[in-house]
């Protein structure tokens, strides 16, 4: 291969061979080989058998539970994330820095720790759960607990996606809208929100993807009742414990394909918005 074809711009700095070689070697050994092992492993199965494994009623129910809970968690995160990012960027108040630092806690805290802590906190005799219990609202071992665990572990995505965009958005635009007669709600809806939309969508989509795959926090709090609160990640784990590797791999391939498609969609979206931004 001629180097002019390979390079879009001729390299100026030395070290291409070393850094490129190391990267490709690593990416192949650590990421690509294990990922291709999964379809290879499944290639022994016939289509009918594969279809049967991935459409087992209990597995189908787990897709539904996972999608529903992850969607609810993503919506909750979009709202909470919007609030937190807005408050952190727009106002100075005591405790702001601490709040800013704490937002990253769900990323830094191991998911198993989040799992047992949220379970203890929201159990019917827990510090927070007892208040819900009085109104007969069950959080742990039910769908609300599932959503809570997913929302907790993906909380930082929306906040961190919105913060830089909000910082760039000058208050002048809103002031202009206000002088032109828009009220506060209108200036937010028609001036601020459209500007935030790309970041909000990206952040929410990332939170959704993360929630779909969440395992550690979820299994402690969800109760894992088949057909009700059993997520797909757990379904794979259950099949493995039954030594039914083929069923586990088949379900895993569905999850893998879904997350790959979503990831590519998000990257396309980011690329699209970036282009439009540069075009302006």
């Amino acid at each position: 291969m001629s180097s002019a074809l390979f390079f879009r711009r001729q390299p100026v700095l030395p070290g291409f061979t070393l850094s490129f070689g190391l990267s490709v070697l690593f990416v192949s050994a650590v990421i690509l080989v294990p990922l291709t092992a999964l379809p290879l492993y499944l290639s022994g199965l016939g289509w009918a058998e594969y279809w049967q494994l991935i459409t087992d009623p209990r597995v189908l129910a787990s897709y539904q539970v996972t999608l529903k809970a992850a969607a609810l968690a993503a919506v909750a995160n979009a709202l909470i994330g919007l609030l937190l990012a807005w408050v952190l960027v727009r106002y100075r108040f005591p405790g702001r820095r601490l709040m800013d630092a704490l937002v990253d806690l769900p990323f830094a805290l191991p998911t198993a720790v989040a799992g047992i802590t949220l379970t203890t906190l929201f159990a019917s005799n827990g510090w927070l759960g007892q208040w819900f219990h009085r109104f007969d609202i069950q959080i742990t071992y039910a769908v609300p607990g599932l959503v809570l665990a997913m929302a907790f572990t993906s909380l930082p995505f929306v906040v961190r996606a919105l913060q830089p965009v909000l910082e760039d958005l000058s208050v002048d635009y809103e002031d202009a809208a206000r002088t032109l007669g828009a009220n506060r709600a209108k200036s937010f809806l028609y001036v601020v929100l459209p500007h935030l939309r790309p970041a909000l969508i990206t952040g929410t989509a990332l939170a959704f993807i993360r929630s779909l795959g969440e395992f550690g926090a979820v299994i402690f709090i969800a109760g894992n009742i088949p057909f009700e609160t059993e997520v797909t990640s757990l379904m794979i784990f259950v099949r493995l414990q039954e030594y039914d590797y083929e069923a586990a791999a088949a379900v895993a391939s569905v999850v893998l394909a879904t997350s790959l498609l979503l990831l590519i969609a998000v990257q396309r979206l980011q690329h699209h918005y970036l282009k439009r931004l540069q075009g302006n």
Partner: protein
Amino acid sequence: MAQPPRNPLAWLLIALAMTLVVLLLVLPLVLIFSKAFGAGLDVLLANLVDSDMQSAIRLTLWVAAITVPVNLVFGVALAWCVTRYDFRGRSLLLTVIDLPFAMSPVVAGLCYLVTYGITSPLGQWLSAHDIQVMFSPIGITLVTIFVTCPYVARILIPLMESQGSDEEQAALTLGAGGWQAFWHVTLPNIKWALLYGVVITNARAVGEFGAVSVVSGAVRGQTLTLPLHVELLHMDYNTVGAFTAAGLLACMALLTLVIKTLMEWHQQRSQRLAAASSDGDTA
């Protein structure tokens, strides 16, 4: 542009945000430590010196001690490669490196299981040579490397992209070699981001649960990492023990947040200094 809140709505929003942060983030932290210390210091210490706990701590530290340097070297190489050169396949490389972020950890564990497990040719060859990868610390380390490999690169790439390579090129023009330019020009410019990359990789490596539980085999005292030990103690209804292990992990998470905050302060200060000096130049 941030300002003290001026109107009641602002105060209401701040109060709402504060309430959410206290209920969802502060209270869980308080709960972890209050449960760990709940039965007194003696019980806490007894749980800490328990042999299973000790071996879980040791294994977790070992896994992190291998994972972090491996991902550090790879992350720097990859960030250098995609920010300093423009070549065909660059965006593909960037997509591939994001895969571990998007994947369910259980699926990641399963991929490693079918790669190195007894069902695959590779696994059969390994077991014929008496090397056990799955259900051993080696497998745990491998999946941990997989799960945490994007962090260093992902933190470095935006920074190195925005810095550009002018300074390195200047160093080369002045007669420096490639490595000299890297050590004396690039490294000082990225050291804070690098530190944060290391810290977050470490936090994720120490705390990984889903992928590790697939390949661990859960042998008490041998292949249980701290997060898996948390689960085991929780299942055994040993609440104090579970929260003692959780407390250790929470301390590490808090340390991660402190280092991140310090790094951001440092970045803001150097930005302000740069802005101030360029103002001085124009005046």
